[in-house]
């Protein structure tokens, strides 16, 4: 069993109300480390055995078609150990 992770984030030029809210809340709690916060989605996909190249290509396709909306989002696919 392996895990494929798809991270989906809003494109940088798109407003991210959630990230903004977190960025505003952190200093109110005394946390001052963040210059900026963006919030996205993380999908953990479990697959049988080691993922093949063909399988990863399929995941890319699914990420583009279902897991993200390319008009406003970008995604990355990777295998996690």
């Amino acid at each position, binding site marked *: 069993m392996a895990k494929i992770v798809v991270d989906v984030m809003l494109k940088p030029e798109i407003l991210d*109300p*959630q990230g903004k*809210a*977190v960025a505003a*809340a952190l200093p*109110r*709690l005394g946390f001052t480390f963040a210059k900026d916060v963006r*919030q996205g989605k993380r999908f953990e996909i479990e697959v049988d055995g080691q993922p093949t190249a063909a399988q990863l290509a399929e995941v890319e396709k699914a990420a583009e078609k279902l897991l993200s909306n390319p008009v406003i989002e970008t995604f990355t696919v990777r295998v996690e150990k």
Partner: protein
Amino acid sequence: MKIGVVTFPGTLDDRDAARAVRHAGGDAVSLWHNDADLHGVDAVILPGGFSYGDYLRCGAISRFSPVMEPIIAAAQKGMPLLGICNGFQVLAEAHLIPGALTRNHALHFICKDQKLVIENNQTAWTSAFAEKEEIVIPLKNGEGAYMCDDQTLAMLEGEGRIIARYVGENPNGSRNLIAGVTNERGNIVGLMPHPEHAIDALTGPTADGLGFFTSVLKALAAGGVK
């Protein structure tokens, strides 16, 4: 009796909650999230809405508002505190009530007239109801599924701390059909459906919700919660 109604940025049902308090015969006092003063109120309602847009997690940001400090302190000494919907989420995030509220199982917002059964009519907010009384009030939320681990669930069931349950089909995926929960002492109640929208059959499905507000006035008149 003075009942405080808190307004966080993004709170929506504050005016409705205040109206419900007045209908029940109390005085509603509005409390501002950024003001750490309870202005002498005898009880507090955290109303519904989308405080801070419900971004991050519902209630997660408002739970740290300045007004929450005196509220938590007073509630821990027995002051009646009711969290409705988003208010319930704030109570859970503040760990005043065990468990958490998560995404509805159907993944979308639902607004419907919901039948409930009152399971515990001994709390500060439910004493006006008969034992096992069935009522209909609006349910409206996107993240109303009550979740907790098995141990907590057994404890809540064992101690009679589930104050109301959904009747019929599970509307949102809550464990054990839980619609409302109280703390050990019975002064703090978190409730997912909206009694403040059911105080008059002209504007709500029923007037069944009024009981929550008359309950607390009765409890306060009797000297509060032991």
